[in-house]
């Protein structure tokens, strides 16, 4: 078995420590738009990264293959590629395979080969297991057992493009201007204890879930030990990996909605819980009692996305920044307000949510302009 911590955490520290810029934008009306704006926005926060990691997630990307699992796989050698392709042919029905188009970019040196595969799972292949669980297991197999290969993303109608470089350089390299999606997230990375490895850049993905994250989780040790009890092996030693697994456990396996998940990862203080109505108190108290080991303590802001939904929130005392902007049906989440203003100068609204408060953009509940009364009479549209 290959040791991912060797590539992602070469010094064997407790975990990879990094800080970042993050940006997300979603058209809650479901209209697809190109990546031009998000590249400009994340580039505007250039100084929050150090060129050792940048990446993007795009949803609504492959309408022609909307029902197939789109695997984006990175290869460091021809052997890795042939081994993975043999594995794929054995475990999936392959509809289409191609190299992910790139262009020479001066800043990107020694890039790995990246291919994409559109795959289906035959019922007899997953043997009673749900297709999603089957795919998760296969991704883990490639990532932990096959040398020189790593799955960037494995969801339907979406993909992750990432690598070592500033995010705008990664965007140029992968020619993101040619793609469209209704939801984009982006990440610029500032790791302090890894020389940078393409697989370690954000967004972190499993199925159609992606996480971009800015922070350092001081509770990492217990979060990881808790998840180990449920069979999650944190091979990469990153906070982001812990968050992704926590979300997978809570949302997919324990069927909890995202608002509840936010209350587990960034719970209210006990004293605040006591001020809630009795039934809500009981819920919030029970969540902390049962899932206390998943409380993400320490500074973080995360943007989680999956099909139809984008969620952002900070730790409960907001030790890392998050600004929200709204323009019509478009929701922006960003480390800095300036990045939002750059791509949308005439926002309807912009605000900083309180610590732990989840901001949710959803196709099911598109944003609609609201009339708000202001002092001195009259209404404004926001």
């Amino acid at each position: 078995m290959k040791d991912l911590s060797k590539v992602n955490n070469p010094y064997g520290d407790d975990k990879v420590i990094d800080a970042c810029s993050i940006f997300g934008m979603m058209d809650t009306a479901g209209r697809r738009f190109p990546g031009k704006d998000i590249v400009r926005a994340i580039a505007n926060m250039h100084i929050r990264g150090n060129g050792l990691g940048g990446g993007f997630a795009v949803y609504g990307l492959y309408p022609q293959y909307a029902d197939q699992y789109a695997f984006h796989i990175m290869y460091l050698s021809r052997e890795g590629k042939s081994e993975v392709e043999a594995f794929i042919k054995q475990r999936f029905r392959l509809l289409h395979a191609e190299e992910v188009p790139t262009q020479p970019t001066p800043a990107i040196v020694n890039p790995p080969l990246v291919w994409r595969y559109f795959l289906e799972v035959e019922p007899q292949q997953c043997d009673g297991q749900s297709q999603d669980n089957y795919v998760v297991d296969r991704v883990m197999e490639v990532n932990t057992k096959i040398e020189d290969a790593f799955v960037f993303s494995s969801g339907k109608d979406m993909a992750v493009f990432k690598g070592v470089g500033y995010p705008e350089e990664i965007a140029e390299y992968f020619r993101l201007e040619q793609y469209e999606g209704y939801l984009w997230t982006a990440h610029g990375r500032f790791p302090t204890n890894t020389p940078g490895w393409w697989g370690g850049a954000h967004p972190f993905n499993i199925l159609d879930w992606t996480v971009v994250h800015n922070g350092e989780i001081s509770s990492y040790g217990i979060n990881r030990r808790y998840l180990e009890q449920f069979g999650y092996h944190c091979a990469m030693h990153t906070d982001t990996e812990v968050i992704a697994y926590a979300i997978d456990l809570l949302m997919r396996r324990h069927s909890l909605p995202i608002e509840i998940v936010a209350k587990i990862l960034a719970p209210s203080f006990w004293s605040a819980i006591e001020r809630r109505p009795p039934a809500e108190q009981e819920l919030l108290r029970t969540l902390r009692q049962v899932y206390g080991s998943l409380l993400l303590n320490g500074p973080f802001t995360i943007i989680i996305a999956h099909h139809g939904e984008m969620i952002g929130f900070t730790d409960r005392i907001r030790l890392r920044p998050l600004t929200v902007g709204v323009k019509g049906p478009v929701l922006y989440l960003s480390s800095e307000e300036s990045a939002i203003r750059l791509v949308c100068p005439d926002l309807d609204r912009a605000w900083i949510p309180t610590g732990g408060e989840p901001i949710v953009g959803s196709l099911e509940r598109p944003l609609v302009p609201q009339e708000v009364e202001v002092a001195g009479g009259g209404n404004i549209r926001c």
Partner: protein
Amino acid sequence: MKTYLPPKFIVERDPERCIQCQVCVNQCAFDTHYYDAEDDEVRSRPDSCVGCHRCVLFCPTQALTIRRNPLDYRENYNWRPEVIEDIIKQAETGGVLLTGMGNDKGYRIYWDHLVLNASQVTNPSIDPLREPMELATYLGRKPDRVEIDRDYPGLKTELAPQVRIEVPVMFAAMSYGAVSINVHESLARAATEAGTLWNTGEGGLHPKLYEYGNNTIVQVASGRFGVHPKYLDVSRVVEIKIGQGAKPGIGGHLPGEKVSAEVSMTRMIPTGTDALSPAPQHDIYSIEDLAQLVYALKEATNYTKPISVKIAAVHNSAAIASGMVRAGADIIVLDGLRGATGAAPKIIRDNVGIPIEMALASVDTRLRQEGIRNQASVVISGGIRNSGDVAKAIALGADAVYIGTAALIALGCTLCQQCHTGKCAWGICTTDLALTKRLNPDIGARRLANLLRSWSLELKDILGGMGINALESLRGNRLHLRGVGLNETELEILGVRMAGS
């Protein structure tokens, strides 16, 4: 028989300062000081001094100094003075040597080889004077997951009984009869004020303390002393005592002299009779028997209280603890090598059991490997000295700790190890009415509550320094610990990395 036992201490009285007031004579419970009326002079018999320093503290003119008798035998690492004297005592009595308090030998104290982490640059430390810092802990069985309905809040999961403590430090089991009623009252009131729990030990609960029941853990031990429906009903938690760190595998023996009228009423035994706790619980010869007692107590309390099971930390603690959780224990208590006692055979106290740090680490690891760590809270005891030890215990995986010796020190104990004599000059480990009066429960409760407050404040500082603002984020978070001066096997068992790595 002429004793060959030399005095342990030298009593020095400064004649310039002594005013012959006889306070020392009255304070000493071991008759070290006496008044010679003929000479109008206070004198001492150093051979009976136990070094409790009661007289030193209470002498109004600071005329007294107690020093260790150097006992300069020819140096010998094997035949140390203590070894020699134990043999002398046995040669003169032919009996089992008894002692009090915890193991005082030089076994490695692992707390002193573990250091804590703090935040620098990459994440901020949190100032507990300016930001909320949460120490609240819920003890009790937790399910694997929470289920909810679609409509908020819509909680479907019903939890087993949970007990909230405001600070993860509770008072360890010390039985009435061993300690005085004033000690019990001090503990009960301090626990109530601090929002934590105290433990009755195995000697029952005096009816005048029923009012503190909400903060009381009642014990059911092998002697079943004082166990009746009301006793169970008033409590918050019921604890089955299997063993004790100071004397694993050994029962209890409260001498008849200590069984006063009040003790007799509380323990439900005749006045003046020895209270003998059998070594095992005679209805528990195996794990399935434990399950029966656990569920008998759950039935008796109508599933309203967590049931705790306490064992001494021994070689197979991890496997035993796993069995206890599977037998239905909601809380498991591990009492380590340095756990104290009111009376135990010295040879047992000093040689049986394992360090609590090792037991805790291996139990927490095992329960996680088996995926049942959430099914019981883990409480440890035995030698916890300060909030640093508490923080390290939490990081190793404990939900909370018990303190016994530290609490008694707060009440005046100086660890003279004479608990088994029933003559405690500080009025702690005695039922002699004249001596028990020395501990005023108003003051005792204040001193104990102050101690808990100090430790809470320090724990908040420790957490804040790590950039953590809730205790549950430190619990089991061994990445916040590093080892110093430990070998690879020790580090592996503790699940801790070496400092610098």
